[in-house]
């Protein structure tokens, strides 16, 4: 460390109270920024949970106007055979997905998302279902339910007022059609809250109100060695349908949700507010720190320290408090994240969040510091002789 940088550091930590309130302000700002950004990332990740949990295929073929996974614009059943005929398709299966009403054993009516997967191959079933569990779908009236929801949203209220988890063997009526819980699957926590029930494609169609269009997606597996982008383009050209990879479909869904809901704005506001408050605290402290040292800084100027070196000293001070405050704040955010995570809230810290957060904190501290520096630069070194 250069001697004057060391001097800057000593000036900084020498004023304990100022130093601590500077760091505390930055810890607060960093904590809020990283925490809120990570919760935001967590929630935005979850918009793609169902898509990522669907197993076995390469492309999702759908009406080109579909904007996200919860928006069904079903295709005619002939879509399947049209897609099957396209060069490079190894196999293609239909998938039904729609919101229907279900009545639980206790009579409670809830909205569920019924997903019907190909009867023969069971392709498109949940990744988190065991082979045995998936195979139970071949039984009469069988449906699979989300294991994590058995005791929560699907819980059954008994006659005596107590509740019990929904169990394998329980009967549910879906859109007035009988169904039996045959097994369970594990699912990634989902942004959309209505329970997903899996059944077979043909059974789903019997449950659904009669419609001419009943194929929500055609799931496509490419022949090995076939390039997906090319195949997707061929499907688009031949049929006019959109063909998206899992990543693309998840991204489209995420973008739509963020754009159409207040989530982005809400988190954005919290992040910006936390940021502003923290930065204001830090800026104000930094500024008063510089003001209080004004005479001494003017003396330094009289003694031959150039303005540029004074600015550099402030940069050193900003860097020390910025990195320290951010380190502690981001650390606390990660800690709070592991707690939030354990109670089921969405939370994911990314390197992007961390580096952007650090960049933002340091930049705004620098700006605050430079405000103070400007004052010091305008200080008249001759003022040091004044009483």
């Amino acid at each position, binding site marked *: 460390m250069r*001697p004057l940088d060391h001097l800057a550091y000593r000036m900084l930590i020498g004023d304990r109270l100022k130093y601590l309130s500077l760091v505390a302000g930055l810890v607060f700002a960093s904590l809020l920024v990283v925490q809120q950004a990570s919760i935001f990332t967590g929630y935005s990740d979850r918009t793609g949970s169902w898509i990522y949990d669907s197993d076995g295929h390469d492309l999702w073929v759908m009406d080109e106007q579909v904007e996200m996974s919860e928006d069904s614009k079903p295709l005619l059943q002939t879509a399947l055979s049209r897609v099957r005929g396209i060069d490079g398709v190894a196999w293609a299966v239909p998938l039904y997905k729609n919101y229907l009403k279900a009545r639980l054993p206790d009579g409670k009516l809830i909205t569920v998302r019924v997903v019907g997967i190909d009867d023969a191959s069971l392709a498109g079933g949940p990744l988190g279902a065991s082979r045995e569990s998936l195979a139970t779908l071949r039984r009469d009236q069988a449906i699979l339910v989300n294991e994590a929801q058995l005791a929560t949203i699907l819980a059954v209220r008994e006659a005596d007022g107590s509740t019990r988890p929904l169990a394998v063997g329980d009967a549910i009526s879906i859109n007035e059609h009988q169904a039996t819980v045959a097994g369970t699957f594990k699912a990634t926590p989902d942004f959309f809250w209505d329970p997903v029930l899996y059944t077979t494609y043909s059974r789903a169609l019997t449950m659904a109100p009669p419609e001419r269009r009943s194929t929500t997606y055609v799931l496509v597996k490419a022949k090995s060695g076939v390039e997906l982008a090319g195949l997707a383009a061929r499907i688009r050209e031949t049929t006019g349908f959109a063909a998206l990879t899992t990543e693309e479909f998840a991204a489209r869904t995420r973008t739509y949700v963020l754009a159409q809901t207040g989530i982005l704005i809400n988190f954005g506001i919290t992040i910006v507010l936390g940021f502003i408050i923290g930065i204001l605290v830090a800026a104000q402290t930094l500024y008063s720190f510089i003001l209080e040292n004004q005479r001494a800084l003017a003396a330094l100027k009289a*003694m031959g320290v150039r303005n540029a070196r004074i600015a550099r000293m402030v940069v050193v001070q900003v860097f020390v408090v910025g990195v320290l405050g951010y380190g502690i704040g981001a650390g606390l955010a990660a800690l709070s994240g592991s707690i939030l995570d354990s109670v089921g809230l969405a939370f994911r810290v990314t390197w992007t969040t961390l580096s952007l957060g650090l960049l933002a904190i340091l930049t705004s501290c620098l700006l605050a510091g430079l405000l103070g520096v400007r004052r010091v630069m305008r200080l008249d070194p001759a003022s*040091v002789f004044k009483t």
Partner: protein
Amino acid sequence: MTAVPAASPPTVAIRCAAVTKHYGSGETRIAALRGVDLAVQEGGLTMLVGPSGCGKTTLISILSGILSPSSGELSVFGTDPSRLSDGERAEWRASTVGFVFQQFNLLPALTAAENAAVPLLIRGVPWKQAVEVARGHLAELGLGERCASLPRELSGGQQQRVAIARALVHDPRLLVCDEPTSALDHETGERVIDVLRTAALRSGRVVIVVTHDQRILRYADALLRMDDGCIVGDRSNTSAAPAEGT
């Protein structure tokens, strides 16, 4: 306008000719210096006296390269600091001038030794080494025990001695002091002046002390009297007290 003679005798360290300085402009224009001519010899303690507001602080600010004169000729060890760029002038001050301010202007977060080390730090001397040198100077000024104290833990007189140690630590050729002894008791004041004079007597050094303290005038090797922006008396004191004090 009087020009500076081209061949100045080597013993003259500082020379001013017709130096003026005014603050502000128009109605509020104040002439602080109205044509100062002076020559200061090397190797002595020069005292600058005069009534309040006569321009003493303005003059030493100009001599030390903190202010630039409005007109006139100036030479400090052969350099006119007012002709240097801002950066060069800062560098020149850092290497050539030591300051003792009326307000001590110590950095509140630094210990006495660290404060005294600042001019060395400015010149890039490593921290430990600079503080070590500063300790020596503090000891010389009777503050050997207080090296680790913060300014707020020191009396006014002690703070002033720290400021003097800071002014001497990088062994500058020019030392300017504004009222260095006003906050000190008589004995301490004499000791401080003794140190300043020892520094002044080394060849090539100039020490200028602005003072109202009649008690220390007898230590002056030269005495400059100012009134209303002009030098009104210039006396070399051949019978200055010995550097060791009496």
